[in-house]
């Protein structure tokens, strides 16, 4: 079937996923775009397609041949092209998330086992001790900041532990990564945080050298001594994988858990079910991922001209797959704007779709459960000071919070091994 296509990008919209406006009203904005222009074009950030319909996003995510994840860096200028975010994070490629097949296959299967459910379960007890130690630090005071004291440090410490990095250095990694997630890219704080990546790289390279001499059962040893297709990983690949895992591990579960602690504060009658019924808690957990969609979206690049829904996507076009919009698509989810803790089945794509789907989802779920359990059992009456809640100014990368001060009836330390 052929028909004359109108020239130019149809369905132009004024949209910027990094804007404060979007952060404030993303559910409504996605609803508007999805109903008027399910495949829309915005001129922001050099121009990109905005895909907001669940079925279109899944279709594109399942077609990596046409919709590529690959990022390239111009060695001379450092300028980056393509990749998982719009605009591209400069100077750094994430492996495996910013690669395509055939390289992707080797990279992803190299990492899978360390993040598979069995490996994650083996880390649960340790993670619970980390959470207990973090709460021990504040439990006698009667007040804390949910972000600074728990939901930011716990995933960072757990991720450092997976690597085999000294836990005492967790904030040297977490703090700049946290800033990279929510600060606009022109801000000095963002640029400074991007500069800290060099320090992180050197730190990991130092540890790789040490582990090659004294191997342990940790990720740094595995990165430094493991092989893909019979070959050891070069330094660039080691750092790119570490970067991908750090980015994935450090802010996303923070955002989910923080949002859910706000939810339980506002809906205290839901706490008991979450604590008493493990199956109900698992169903509720997935509904939280759907509703809050911590990673709002991911980018792709068209590898060829392609007709999609009556529009012409051109080779090289950047495309924003709005996972959060998919998770609120009324075609798939009844009453999507309501948190329904009984929602089942729940085919959300909060962890992505297609083969690039989140490597760390089992780890994320386990850390989330640990933190929620710790707060609900040791601080059952916690109250967030709503007047002092500070959200991220942008949800473009992660839908999260800067600060959530809370009070609670003081309790006793449990004596978890200090961090």
């Amino acid at each position: 079937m052929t028909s004359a296509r109108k020239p130019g990008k149809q369905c132009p919209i004024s949209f910027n996923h990094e804007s404060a406006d979007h952060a404030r009203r993303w559910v409504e904005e996605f609803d508007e775009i999805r109903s008027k222009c399910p495949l829309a074009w915005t001129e922001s950030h050099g121009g990109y397609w905005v895909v907001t319909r669940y079925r279109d996003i899944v279709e594109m995510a399942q077609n990596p041949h046409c919709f590529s994840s690959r990022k390239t860096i111009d060695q001379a200028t450092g300028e980056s092209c393509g990749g998982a975010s719009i605009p591209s994070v400069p100077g750094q490629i994430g492996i495996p998330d910013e690669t395509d097949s055939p390289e992707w296959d080797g990279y992803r299967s190299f990492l899978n086992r360390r993040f598979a459910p069995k490996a994650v379960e083996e880390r649960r007890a340790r993670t619970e001790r980390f959470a207990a130690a973090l709460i021990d630090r504040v439990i006698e005071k009667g007040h804390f900041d949910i972000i600074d004291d728990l939901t930011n440090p716990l995933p960072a410490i757990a991720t450092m532990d997976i690597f085999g990095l000294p836990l005492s250095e967790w904030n040297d990694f977490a703090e700049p990564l946290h800033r990279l997630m929510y600060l606009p890219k022109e801000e000095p704080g963002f640029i400074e945080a991007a500069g800290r990546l060099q320090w992180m790289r050197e730190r990991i390279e130092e540890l790789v050298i040490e582990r090659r001499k004294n191997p342990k059962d940790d990720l740094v040893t595995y990165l430094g001594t493991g092989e893909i297709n019979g070959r050891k990983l070069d330094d660039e690949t080691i750092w790119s994988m570490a970067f991908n895992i750090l980015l994935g591990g450090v802010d996303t579960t923070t955002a989910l858990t923080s949002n859910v602690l706000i939810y339980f504060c506002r809906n205290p009658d839901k706490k008991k079910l979450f604590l008493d019924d493990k199956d109900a808690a698992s169903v509720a957990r997935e509904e939280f991922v759907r509703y809050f969609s911590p990673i709002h979206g991911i980018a792709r690049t068209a590898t060829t001209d392609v007709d999609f829904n009556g529009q012409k996507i051109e080779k090289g076009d950047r495309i924003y797959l709005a996972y959060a919009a998919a998770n609120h698509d009324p075609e798939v989810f009844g009453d999507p704007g309501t948190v329904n803790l009984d929602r089942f089945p729940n085919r959300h794509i909060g962890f992505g779709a297609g083969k690039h789907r989140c490597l760390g989802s089992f780890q994320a779920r386990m850390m989330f459960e640990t933190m929620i359990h710790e707060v609900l059992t040791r601080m059952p009456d916690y109250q967030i000071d709503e007047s002092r809640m500070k959200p991220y100014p942008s949800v473009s990368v992660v839908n999260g919070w800067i600060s959530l001060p809370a009070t609670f009836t003081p309790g006793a330390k449990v004596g978890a091994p200090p961090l």
Partner: protein
Amino acid sequence: MKVRVKHEVCVGHAMCVLACPELFRLSDEDGHAVVKDEQVPPHLQDAVEQAVRGCPEGAIETA
């Protein structure tokens, strides 16, 4: 009823295990779904249909 996982499509959302842990488990290697027994007893047919509907990739197939 028989059930199978299309391995080339499964990416490890694990919704099937939530729906029917009796018949689905997750691989230690990559967290992808594995059918424990392809024969679905009558009392689990509803749960398996939930697994089919709950898979974002459409990786669960019944016959």
